[in-house]
């Protein structure tokens, strides 16, 4: 099964934000650490609401966090 066509830069952004842990980000976005893990491994394509929450956690626009691979 191929992965979703949306990639992200969550791991890089976490390290750029004072080396935020996966658990920290998960708590801020109201998800589990396993969901953040799946996102970083490109095994999960989030809903729009979660994508916006993650972008808000990094204080970045959505396009800087997620990339659509056509």
């Amino acid at each position, binding site marked *: *099964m*191929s*992965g*979703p066509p949306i990639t992200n830069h969550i791991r890089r952004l976490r390290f750029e934000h004072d080396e935020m842990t996966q658990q920290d980000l998960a708590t801020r976005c*109201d*998800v*589990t*650490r*396993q*969901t953040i893990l*799946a996102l970083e491994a*490109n*095994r*999960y*394509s*989030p*809903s729009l*609401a*979660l994508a916006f929450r993650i972008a808000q956690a990094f204080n970045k626009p959505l396009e800087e966090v997620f990339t659509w691979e056509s």
Partner: protein
Amino acid sequence: MSNQQKSAWYTLAVGLLIAVTYLTLRMTVNGAVATAAFALFALAALTPSLFPIESRDERVRLITHRASLFGGVASYLFVVAICMLVWWSRFRATPPTVDVNILPIIAMGACVTLMLVQSATVLVLANQPLDASNP
């Protein structure tokens, strides 16, 4: 490992334990005593306490939804298959009757099937690519 995966492993173990215990008792003692194996379902009631699942997480909800779907379909197919098997094996008998005691066995078997398939599906989906926009 997430609580959802731990819960799935636990439920899978309980389901297998019930199935193995029932079959063992049925082969070694008799069918009436074998139904005592279904008391082990009580172990499954501990699952929410032992492994509380974070239901607010959308990925967890997605996996739970798909696993419930697969479990329900498997359980339904089990009931259909068993009923057809019973009919096929008994309709030529004289008289063509079916023991009423088989009904709770079918119901419990469907529950075990639901547990096993649902748990296995959770464990498989936890490592598969998922898309929230395609539930």
